[in-house]
């Protein structure tokens, strides 16, 4: 199934929730509004022609620079981008979904951006979302057990955010 | 030995008795300790060869034969740790209980005709009973360590050993029943006419029951594939997780001690004890061919025959140990429920069935008496051993009485 037809179908089904797409990129992607991600994923998995039953990966990408000059040079609004790589074991095709999130919820620093969890669709999302929460700081609403997974439970900060600073000390161990 | 000291050196009987007891203890302790050294070295060498490597090669010159000793010195030098959560008294005592049980059982194990520290009449039973006590050391060690893995090991050990005592007992009863005595010396002397007199070839049931015995014996001394109590891939090291140094090595010695013990018991019960396949020292080599008839004589010839017998016995028992080592390095480990299933669903019924069959053969019921070797080679068991102590005899007019007369021709420890 070509990228265009997938996009068409999704737009027909979800309308405004599909906020953008780039079908000419090396890996063509479709951008989905953060509130609609769960329904879109459920549709993608259930749809007979798409059958995207396999969630490969969820990645959180942080677009930010603590240096204002570089931030300007970056050419992007500061935001957090979630990338869902999906594929189908039956139809052998793949799809990339992107979700654009603010870096902080309501721009209040320290409040994690929120997003519906897709654990009810793919069980594998459980750990992937925990990892994204742990490293990129995104709060998945509806996740059954959102804890840190790679960092210790009492770790402070989200290491893959661009403004992250390594703590000076962790339980008596020098950090920097 | 007491008489010897009294008559030769003019000692008082008490001193002589203490001296004799001391010498016997020292001898046995050496058998256990040196035996463990040799078997640990053997285990390493065999494991090495099985796994396509050399095993120890350096310590003590060739073949690394002093490796175990070197390790022993290392273990002595190690710190003797007691975990904070442990029940210190029981934790420290447990290895000694294990070792003492294994060692005590050796007291009743004859190495050759009459070469036994304490001639216990119910020898088979005594050894089984004392060997069953070894589990105490394990259980207490597991409990007292204050570690959950140790506790799991202890629970497994308790369940496993108590269960396997049942089929083990049933297996041992078969040779006892055939010989009509629980005296190990007497049982072995019943098999002194060459390979066909060995009880394993007595009838098909004894042949089967030997394999059941060996399986159960491996389970009761915790050797792979039944080493559930120390299963390293599941329970870290099981009951001895928290032990280090010398205390740990006591468990080790106890394990190897009991390995040799159950092998020795198998040899006595099924493989003629100290009698070789061609019993040259005995009255009859095979069947009716006369042998030298040296065994059991109260002179130097008898002593030489005893030495040969002891060498014979140790060699056969060592083969048993070797098989255990071989099995350990070949097979995966069973799961605890499979171990229990095997015991209760297979070993017990099979042992019971074999026991029943052996009873039929012995009592010549259903014409099964013809399955016995004795039916075909009548002169196999020496006449001098036919009447045994405690055997029921019919005396006219008075019903059943008991012959308490000792008719065995052998020295008395």
């Amino acid at each position, binding site marked *: 199934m070509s990228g265009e037809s997938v996009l068409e179908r999704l737009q027909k089904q979800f309308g405004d929730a599909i906020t953008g797409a780039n079908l000419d*990129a*090396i*890996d063509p992607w479709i951008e989905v509004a953060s509130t609609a991600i769960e329904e879109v994923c459920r549709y993608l998995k259930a749809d007979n022609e798409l059958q995207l*039953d*396999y*969630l*490969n*990966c969820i*990645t959180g*990408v*942080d677009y930010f620079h603590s240096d204002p000059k570089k931030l300007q040079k*970056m050419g992007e609004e500061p935001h957090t981008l979630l*990338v869902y*790589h999906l594929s189908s*074991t039956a139809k*052998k095709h*793949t799809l*990339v979904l992107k979700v654009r999130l603010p870096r902080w919820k309501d721009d209040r620093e320290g409040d994690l951006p929120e997003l519906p969890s897709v654990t009810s669709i*793919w*069980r*594998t999302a459980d*750990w*992937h979302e925990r*990892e994204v929460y742990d*490293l990129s700081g995104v709060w998945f609403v509806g996740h059954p057990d959102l804890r*840190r*997974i*790679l*960092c*210790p439970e009492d770790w402070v900060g989200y*290491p*893959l955010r661009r403004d992250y600073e390594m703590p000076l000390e962790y339980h008596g161990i020098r950090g920097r | 030995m007491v008489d010897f000291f009294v008559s030769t050196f003019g000692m008082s009987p008490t001193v002589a008795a203490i001296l004799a007891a001391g010498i016997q203890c020292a001898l046995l302790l050496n058998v256990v300790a040196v035996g463990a050294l040799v078997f640990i070295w053997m285990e390493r060498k065999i*494991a090495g060869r*099985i*796994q*396509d490597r050399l095993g120890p090669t350096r310590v003590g010159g060739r073949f690394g034969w002093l490796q175990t000793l070197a390790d022993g010195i290392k273990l002595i030098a190690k710190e003797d740790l007691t975990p904070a959560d442990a029940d210190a008294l029981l934790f420290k005592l447990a290895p000694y209980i294990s070792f003492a049980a294994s060692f005590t059982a050796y007291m009743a194990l004859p190495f050759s005709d009459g070469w036994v520290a304490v001639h216990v009449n119910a020898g088979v039973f005594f050894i089984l009973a004392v060997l069953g006590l070894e589990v105490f050391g394990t259980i207490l060690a597991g409990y007292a360590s204050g570690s*959950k*893995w140790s506790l*799991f090991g202890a*629970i*497994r050990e308790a369940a496993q050993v108590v269960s396997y005592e049942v089929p083990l007992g049933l297996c041992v009863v078969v040779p006892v029943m055939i010989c009509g005595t629980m005296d190990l010396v007497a049982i072995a002397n019943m098999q002194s006419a060459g390979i066909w007199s060995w009880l394993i070839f007595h009838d098909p049931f004894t042949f089967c029951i030997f394999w059941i015995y060996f399986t159960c014996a491996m389970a009761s001394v915790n050797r*792979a*594939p039944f*080493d559930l109590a120390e*299963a*390293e*891939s*599941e*329970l*870290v090291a099981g009951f001895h997780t928290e032990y280090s140094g010398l205390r740990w090595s006591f468990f080790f010695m106890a394990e190897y001690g009991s390995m040799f013990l159950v092998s020795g018991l198998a040899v006595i019960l099924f493989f003629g004890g100290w009698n070789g396949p061609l019993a040259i020292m005995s009255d009859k080599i095979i069947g009716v061919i006369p042998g030298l008839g040296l065994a059991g004589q109260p002179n130097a010839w008898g002593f030489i025959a005893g030495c040969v017998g002891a060498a014979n016995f140790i060699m056969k028992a060592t083969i048993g140990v070797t098989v255990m080592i071989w099995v350990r*390095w*070949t*097979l*995966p*480990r*069973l*799961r*605890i*429920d*499979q171990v229990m299933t095997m015991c209760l669903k297979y070993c017990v019924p099979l042992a019971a069935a074999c026991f029943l069959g052996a009873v039929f053969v012995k009592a010549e019921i259903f014409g099964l008496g013809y399955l016995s070797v004795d039916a075909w080679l009548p002169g196999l068991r020496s006449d001098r051993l036919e009447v045994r102590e405690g055997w029921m005899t019919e005396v006219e007019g008075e019903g059943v009485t008991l012959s308490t007369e000792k008719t065995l021709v052998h020295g008395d420890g």
Partner: protein
Amino acid sequence: MATNLEDPRIIEFDVRTDEMLVNMGPQHPSTHGVLRLVLRTDGEVISEVTPHLGYLHRCAEKIGENLTPRQWIPYTDRMDYLAAMNMNLGWSLVVEKLLDHELSDKAKHLRVIISELGRIASHLVGMGAYGLDLGTFSPFLYAFRERERILDLFEEVCGARLTYSYLTPGGATADLPTGWVDKVEAFLRQLEPIISDYHELLTTNAIFIKRTAGIGIMSAEMAIDYGCSGPVLRGSGVDYDLRRDGEERYTEMYDGYAYEVVVEKDGHYPQDRNYPKVPREAVLGDCWHRFYVRMLEVMQAMDLVEQGIEKYKSASGDWGVPIKLTQRLPKGDVYLETEAPRGQMGFYLVSDGSAIPWRVRARSSCFCNLSVTSELCPGCLIADVPAIVGSLDIVMGEIDR
């Protein structure tokens, strides 16, 4: 005790005993490194398993944001350190995809040879370590003996025995040494008969079958749902192998190679040949099948190496010159998954147009494979936990990154 078949988490107990909370790991002989499983047990029966990760977290993704792609290659080595060549390959392909770099035929065949040898080495360790998990020591050393030969071969190629950094974006750091392929062929001839020893010691061993068959059964739906991949996915009967079904850039490496995906069809494996048949007790998706798929993949990889050598000898072109250390990357993001020995190893690269990636992400196969433990283990005995975790064949370096 009995396990409720509909929901394995419901366990019916006969005798009431106290519940126990046990820490399996991070220091434990059979958790393959530093995995920590918190077990809630009733006697020996597991009622709940909670895996805890991160004891080997080395911030590889964070480091990747500060290094150029070629500088990051050694960090991929340290992910799945038992199949470092395949990790190198995955990352190299992603970078080449972003650069739209085309390889010569010779370089492709070289990569097939190297990565399939890596697969053999990795599966040998998986097999041996699985024997260790089940309490038999000898197959482990046998497996290491053969793996050692592969390491010798790799050492000749790149000088390293564990962390090779050999395949890089653009090709490889060097061509294969002269006469090397003959040594590989000699090795394969040696390995072939030994495989049947492994089958005797493990695959067909009665105790081994008792310990693995019917344990940790994972249905195909569940495997897909949990994102399992590699032998774990195929062991559940899902016919999916990225070497055939993956992206063009990866599958074209295997163009012209004759091989069949190792997966059970109608109760037997197409690669069966004279290898042991599936025992009656085994259920599709249990530990035995996962193990057996791995064993058959060793055979498959041996075939592929042989074919690769033939093709390599006659192939044209060079072995692929690595890209510049500070090669500027075009703006964009690419994701690519390869079929590593333990499953689908994916790398995601986001570039902002400089030489250093904006974001690097490694999608670990073991990470997803491991997540099924909390679903598979409840209702099993403690002894089954190593059997199940071992059959997933995890490497903590890849999970924690």
